[in-house]
Structure formats: structure tokens, C-alpha cells
């Protein structure tokens, strides 16, 4: 007579917390030794860092210079402008996060940003009281955006236009419209800096996208002239480091245009260099995607009577881009970190502000100077964003089924 044997609980060391610990930490004498040694090491390092941060470090200059870190010399009375741009951005992301109930990745990103804004709001409450209302406003705008997204998911359809509007209005809000007058007076680009500048430079990824696609298509063109020019551009730009291009662009762009360099603020020059550099890398990513699209796709499209441009834009590119989204996110993370190189052209981005703060007479009065504190502070914030993006990239990869071949 056949009878199903009832399941029994697993013996110790297979399941449960104890089992997990045994398997992962103490499976053999060598492993145990390894666990103990590394454990002691980790505890020692962790403890010394915490003790130093709590007792030895002097964080005063970090908090006192929050404005420099955030916006550098952007006028204090006009801070509502960048904050409004930020609030609008958060609200738009909020709408996306709220509406895309099924899109875990986007929602996760949104809440991470909200957490960051909340963190800065707390810092502002403690150390930078004049902007606490503004930061609270940003927080509120994010939540309102989210609520709107949840209530009216259909708003998402209008979002591309909203983003375009945000881009233009945001620029005008930051830069201003009328010189000197009361209404939106102009804040010259040389006063922009800090984390705001890092984010602005980071948006260089946006124009680099179409440029990169054009270059990639050009590189795959059957027409030799176009192909070689595009290939040459891509290879030359990728061949040299970004810091060199920033330096060269800063020197040469005004010469190339034979114009008063003041018409090309340093930020613009850096932006051009970053965009072109990013475009060359984007082109290589896109090219990888183009190569992954089977030839049959093009042929089927041509057989249906679609023209060359239609085939490319409707059939080939959508597939190619989808395949390289993780690579593009990876590139975005790289670009985010690389914005720190603009120190070479005298721009005061988030990273460069550490040097400026370290050289204030006030910083020099602290015994031994304030260095480690400043570097740790910026490193942590860079890490937060870059790491969060890389998590999102991994989720995206999983969602798209790339890498699970």
C-alpha cells in the first residue's frame, strides 16, 4: 500500500537562523577562523570610524557651509528659485511614482529621493534655518505629486511635455529673465555651484542621448564618409580622459568660436565637453544595442514597405535601446561621478566646494584643519545617489530579463 511520508522538519544546520549561521559562517574550522578574523577586523574598523566621527571630528564647518555645498554663491534671497525647480522636479517624479503603481523601480527611486530631501530638511532645520520652509516645501511638493499620481494616473501621459516645460522654465527660473530688475533678475552662471551644479552637469546625459544615437547610427552607416567621421569622433573622444576634454574645451571653445569667452560661461564649456564626451560613450552603448537587433527585423520592415528612417526609428531603435537601458544607466552613474572633474576649469561643484571650505580662514582655525570631515560628507552623498542608481539599474536588468540568459 503506497503512503505519502509526511514531511519532517529539517535537521539542525540545514534550515532556520542557526542553520544559516552554521552554513555561512562556521561550516569548517578554516571558515570559523576566517569569520573570527574578519569579524574582529570589521568591528575594529567600524568602531574606530564611529568613535572618530562622534568624538574627534569637528563637523561645524560642514554644517556652517551648507549653502556653499548646496548652491555655492547662488544669492541667498533667490534661493526659492532653485528650490522651486527642485520642488517641481520632485513633484513630477512623484506623479510618475504615484501613477506607476506597478513600477516598483520608479517608486523606489522616488521614495529614496524623498528620504534624501527629508534628511536635508532636518539638516536645514538644525543648521540652516533660513531655508527650512523651502525644504519643507520641496518635501510637500513631492508628496503632493505622489498623491496626484495615485489619484489621477492618467496624468502620466502628459508628463513628457511637463518635463520639457520643466527643463525650459527651470532654466529660466535659475538663470532669470531680466538683468537687474526686480522680476527674476539674472543670476550669472558663475555663481552657480555646489550640488546644484553637479545635478545640472549631470543633465548633460539628456542631450547626449540623441547625439549618441545619431553617432551610433552614423557609425553603422553604409556610407563611408559618414561612417568614418562618426567613428573618428567617437574614438578620439573616448580615447582621452574627460578631465582633459574639460581642460581643452575651456581653453579652445572660445578660440574656436572666436568669441568673447564671457558669452560662453565656464559652466557652458564644461557642459559641452561633458555632453560630447557622454555622447561618444552613449554611441558605443547604443551601437551594442543596434548590433543585438537581428537583421531580419530590418528586412521585415523594409519588405513591408517602411522607409529607411521609419525602419530605424520604429523598428530598430526601440529594440536596440531597450536592450541597452542597463548600460545607459551605468553610464549615467559614471557621468554623475565624473562631474566632480570640473574642478580643473575652476568651477565650484559639490566636490570642489570641499576645497573652498577647507581654505576658509575659519577652517584653518580648527586644529589640524577640516579635511576628512569634508571628504566623508561629500563621499557619502555621492555614494547615496550613485548606489541608489546602481540598485535601480540592477532591478531594471532583472525586469528586462537581460543577463538571465
Amino acid at each position, binding site marked *: 500500500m503506497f503512503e505519502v511520508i509526511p514531511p519532517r522538519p529539517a535537521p539542525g544546520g540545514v534550515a532556520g537562523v542557526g542553520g544559516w549561521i552554521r552554513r555561512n559562517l562556521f561550516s569548517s574550522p578554516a571558515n570559523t577562523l576566517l569569520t573570527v578574523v574578519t569579524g574582529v577586523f570589521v568591528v575594529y574598523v567600524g568602531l574606530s570610524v564611529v568613535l572618530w566621527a562622534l568624538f574627534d571630528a569637528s563637523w561645524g564647518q560642514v554644517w556652517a557651509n551648507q549653502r556653499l555645498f548646496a548652491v555655492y554663491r547662488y544669492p541667498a534671497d533667490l534661493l526659492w528659485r532653485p528650490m522651486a525647480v527642485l520642488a517641481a522636479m520632485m513633484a513630477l517624479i512623484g506623479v510618475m511614482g504615484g501613477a506607476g503603481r506597478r513600477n516598483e523601480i520608479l517608486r523606489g527611486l522616488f521614495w529614496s529621493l524623498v528620504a534624501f530631501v527629508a534628511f536635508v530638511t532636518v539638516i536645514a532645520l538644525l543648521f540652516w534655518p533660513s531655508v527650512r520652509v523651502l525644504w519643507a516645501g520641496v518635501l510637500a511638493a513631492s508628496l503632493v505629486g505622489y498623491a496626484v499620481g495615485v489619484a489621477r494616473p492618467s496624468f502620466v501621459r502628459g508628463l513628457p511635455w511637463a518635463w520639457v516645460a520643466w527643463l525650459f522654465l527651470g532654466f529660466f527660473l535659475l538663470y532669470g529673465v531680466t538683468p537687474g530688475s526686480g522680476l527674476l533678475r539674472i543670476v550669472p552662471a558663475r555663481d552657480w555651484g555646489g550640488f546644484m551644479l553637479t545635478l545640472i552637469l549631470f543633465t548633460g546625459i539628456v542631450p547626449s542621448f540623441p547625439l549618441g544615437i545619431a553617432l551610433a547610427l552614423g557609425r553603422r552607416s553604409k556610407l563611408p564618409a559618414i561612417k568614418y567621421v562618426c567613428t573618428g569622433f567617437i574614438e578620439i573622444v573616448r580615447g582621452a580622459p574627460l578631465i582633459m576634454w574639460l581642460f581643452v574645451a575651456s581653453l579652445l571653445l572660445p578660440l574656436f568660436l572666436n568669441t568673447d569667452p564671457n558669452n560662453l560661461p565656464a559652466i557652458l564649456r564644461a557642459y559641452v565637453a561633458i555632453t560630447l564626451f557622454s555622447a561618444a560613450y552613449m554611441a558605443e552603448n547604443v551601437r551594442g544595442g543596434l548590433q543585438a537587433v*537581428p537583421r*531580419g*527585423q530590418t*528586412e*521585415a*520592415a*523594409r*519588405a*513591408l*514597405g*517602411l*522607409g529607411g528612417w*521609419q525602419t530605424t526609428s*520604429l*523598428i530598430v531603435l*526601440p*529594440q536596440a535601446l*531597450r536592450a541597452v537601458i542597463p548600460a545607459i544607466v551605468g553610464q549615467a552613474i559614471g557621468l554623475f561621478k565624473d562631474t566632480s572633474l570640473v574642478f580643473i576649469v575652476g568651477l565650484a561643484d559639490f566636490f570642489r566646494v570641499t576645497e573652498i571650505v577647507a581654505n576658509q580662514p575659519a577652517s584653518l582655525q580648527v586644529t589640524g584643519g577640516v579635511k576628512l570631515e569634508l571628504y566623508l560628507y561629500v563621499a557619502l552623498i555621492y555614494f547615496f545617489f550613485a548606489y541608489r542608481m546602481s540598485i535601480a539599474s540592477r532591478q531594471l536588468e532583472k525586469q528586462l530579463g537581460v543577463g538571465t540568459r
Partner: protein
Amino acid sequence: MSNVTPAPVRADAPAGGQAIITIEGLNKWFGDFHVLRDINLSVNQGEVVVVIGPSGSGKSTLIRCINHLEEHQEGRIVVDGTELTDDVRNIDLVRRETGMVFQSFNLFPHLTVLENITLAPIRVRKWKRTQAEERARFFLDKVGIPEQALKYPGQLSGGQQQRVAIARALTMGPKVMLFDEPTSALDPEVIGEVLEVMVALAQEGMTMIVVTHEMGFAREVGDRVIFMDAGQIVEVGSPEHFFLAPREARTKAFLSKIL
């Protein structure tokens, strides 16, 4: 000069019909490799021509030349009165009037079945979306999978995908359908469902050129069978002629292997 080129086999359509495809003296090279040699072929409206032959014999290349997926170097190809020349407009015209079904389906994976089908009518024929969708559903119904309209190709079986591909080609209202080994990539149990559709299509009077190894199909619906080898047309005849009394030794050898 003393070398006498053997006269190429001419696969002319039966007299009396209205020729919709005329190929004369077609030659094509891939680099130094002479893939198509002196092809002469014409096809009448409503005719079903089956092209058979060993792999590498140039069958696929031949039908790909007909809608200019491959460029020929010598000879003339006239489709529905339009000659394929270097004129971009003529190429577009010919492609509009010929539908093609590929061995590997080549559905667009990022579009739904319905979008796959309506894409070309909307973009090329400039139909309204509603009109295109209506026609698309009509043909989906015809190939027997009306319920799959909103799925993505990846969610369909091979046989279903190929039927979508046929519907996609048909929705453009082509005058000629080109089939490039439409069943070769399919599992044996679903080949039948695709062939059924093709048979039905043939019986409705569609002009078809079919490259295939399905001898049953050739025998059932083929008006003419063309045997190609080494880039040449070796033998032309009715299905009965082929399967009962092939003339050329090469044809016999080929048929003995696959039958």
C-alpha cells in the same frame, strides 16, 4: 569565343495569363561568388510557383531580389509593371505591392500583434488607425488567431507567430506574396496550421512564390515547380512532372534524398 554558353533554362509563365512578375537575365554576385546565374522567370497573376532546391542554391536570394532586399547586378526585374531600378521610388512601389513571409517570422518583439500588423498600413499606406485595425482584425481572423491581437509576439507559439506574419503581410493588400521557407523554423506539429493558411490563400487566387521543402504543399497547390541548383534554374514543370518524371539527373538526385 569558341566557348558556347549553354542556353539558360527559361521558366516562362504559361501563355495567356497576365504576367505580374518578369525576371530576365538576372545575375547576382556576392563578392566574387556568382549566386544567381541567368535567371529567367515570369509569374502570372494568381499563379503559385514553388521553388525547391538544395540549400545554397540561390532560392532565397532569388525571391529576396524580387522585393529588392538583395540588389541584383544584371538583368531586369519587373513587378506589376514597375521595374526595379536604382530609382528609390520604384523600389518603394514594388515593396508595397509584395508581401513577404520569412523563415524566422521577424515579428517586431516590442510591438503587440495588432501593432505589428497595423504599423505598415498606417505609416506607408497612410490609413487611419481604425481602418487599419479593422483590416488587421479581419486578417487575424482569417489566419485563425483573432484572440491574440493584444499579445506580444514573444507570448505566441511559432505557428501562431508565422500566421501573424502572414496576416501582417496580407493587411498591406499585396499583389504578390513571397514565402521564404515559412515552415522551416517550426516544430513539426505546428507546420500544418501554417500550411493550411497558405493553401487557403492560394485557393483564393493570390499570386505566390514559395520557397519550401514541403513537397506536399507543392503537390497540392503549386501551379508550377522550379528546381534550382548552383544559382541556376535547372528544371521547370508541373508538380506532377516533378514527382513522377523528373528529367534532369540533378533533380532526380535531390528528390530522391528528400522524398
